[in-house]
């Protein structure tokens, strides 16, 4: 199957390059002059959003899908509408909350730094798990996402979320840091989300602190990480400058 081949290719690739493989299918030209196609057709959208309302009680299960279809006025879900079953339900939550993020977030003023914006965006996205009532069931979703055939799509969606966050935070850098930024934000968000599913504290204070510790680590270690990626380029430039400073005529 193509998804298993994709996974095998992915696993054979050195860890540092994996993100590149995952990035390739997304991020095509984003047009402002032309309306983009909606991700879901109307029937899919109605069924899946109704089904999500059943998740707090029935979990990410086929039953929730069936009940959702019933609510939406479809007596029987034809199985080819959702070939991936419950993963389609999980993915619908991911996609709709990613695209809905921009409507949930308001930055108080222009002087809000990119770092603080990213922190707010992560918290807001985590809050969406709570507001939709699925947070108590999210471990089931994580289990579904980690099935071999769902991993590529799940990681791609995670990468898309990180891209959306940097975009909404107003980051416009298109240099080698583009990749490290998305990789590190993906990692931090995924970790915080897993932490959130086990968090018993009021209003998820512990998750917030967990997130702040991860972001702090990124601030201290982050320089080293992006340095690795820009290393080759940096070395070439540094070498030339060094030799020049030694009086070599170059």
């Amino acid at each position, binding site marked *: 199957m193509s998804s298993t081949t994709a996974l095998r290719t992915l696993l054979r690739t050195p860890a540092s390059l994996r993100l590149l493989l995952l990035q390739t299918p997304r991020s095509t030209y984003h047009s402002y*002059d032309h*309306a983009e196609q909606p991700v879901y057709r109307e029937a899919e959208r109605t069924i899946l*959003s109704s089904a999500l309302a059943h998740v707090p009680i029935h979990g990410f299960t086929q039953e929730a899908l069936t009940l959702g279809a019933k609510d939406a006025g479809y007596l029987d879900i034809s199985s080819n509408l959702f070939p991936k079953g419950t993963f389609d339900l999980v993915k619908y939550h991911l996609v709709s909350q990613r695209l809905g993020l921009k409507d949930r977030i308001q930055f108080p003023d222009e002087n809000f730094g990119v770092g603080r914006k990213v922190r707010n965006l992560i918290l807001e996205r985590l809050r969406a798990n709570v507001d939709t009532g699925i947070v108590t069931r999210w471990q089931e979703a994580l289990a579904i996402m980690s099935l071999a055939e769902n991993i590529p799509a799940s990681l791609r969606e995670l990468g898309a979320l990180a891209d959306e966050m940097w975009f909404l935070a107003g980051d416009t850098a298109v240099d080698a840091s583009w990749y490290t930024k998305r990789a590190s934000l993906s990692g931090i968000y995924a970790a915080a989300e897993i932490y959130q599913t086990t968090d018993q504290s009021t209003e998820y204070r512990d998750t917030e602190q967990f997130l702040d510790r991860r972001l702090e680590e990124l601030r201290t270690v982050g320089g080293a990480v992006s340095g690795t990626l820009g290393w080759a380029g940096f070395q070439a430039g540094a070498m030339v400058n060094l030799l*020049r400073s030694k009086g070599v005529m170059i």
Partner: protein
Amino acid sequence: MSLRTTHSILSGPSLPLKSRLTPLAFQLQSRNRNGTTRTLASATPTPQPDPQPASPPLQSLTNAQKKYLESALRVNHAGELAATLIYTSQIPPIVKAHPHLRPLMKHMYDQEAGHFKTFNHLLAKHRIRPTAMYPIWYAASTLLGWGTGVMGREAAMACTEAVETEIGDHYNSQVKELLRWDDEAKARGETLGEDLQALIKDVRRIRDEELDHLDHAVGEDAKMARPYEVLNGVIRAGCRGAIWVTERV
């Protein structure tokens, strides 16, 4: 109840992708207040072409066209990064040995820096990832600039000649392709939209500037470089290879 809120959030207006237009409009506005009313205007979602006789309807972009734009803009961006770096490392040795070349080198560098800025902006605006080979191209172009700079004026000019020949060809085929889209849209009574019209203009202007550099290089004895054939062949093959790779990653 919470179940209902769930439902209303998800079936809310968040899904159609066209509503994603607003954030960047907001972002661009806050970044450069002076220039981009056009972007803001075009960012208002216009789902279906209104049948207004005054302005022809927008042509919708096919997936193939989006893919083309994505890889073309990424290649342009990488190329201009390389160009600025080549000049950055060439200029010190060349200007030291031939002070009279300072204005020419600065002129060419300034234009390349302008091109690079244009594509930096376009990549961020259209949410296109930069090439994954960024650090590699960074190193390669710095070394190429340094190497030819140290070899002397003729070699440096041969380098410019070779690079600009390939880049000029590359931009030329892009202009041709975009004009073909434009013709096809016109034939259907549609328009490509402001962003693409502007892109055609930009790429044309940049191509002309690249070809100017080519002329300057030949005027400064690029052909006298030794071994000219080898330099020219190797650098041009390198450019074609880099374009090929960057189109893909």
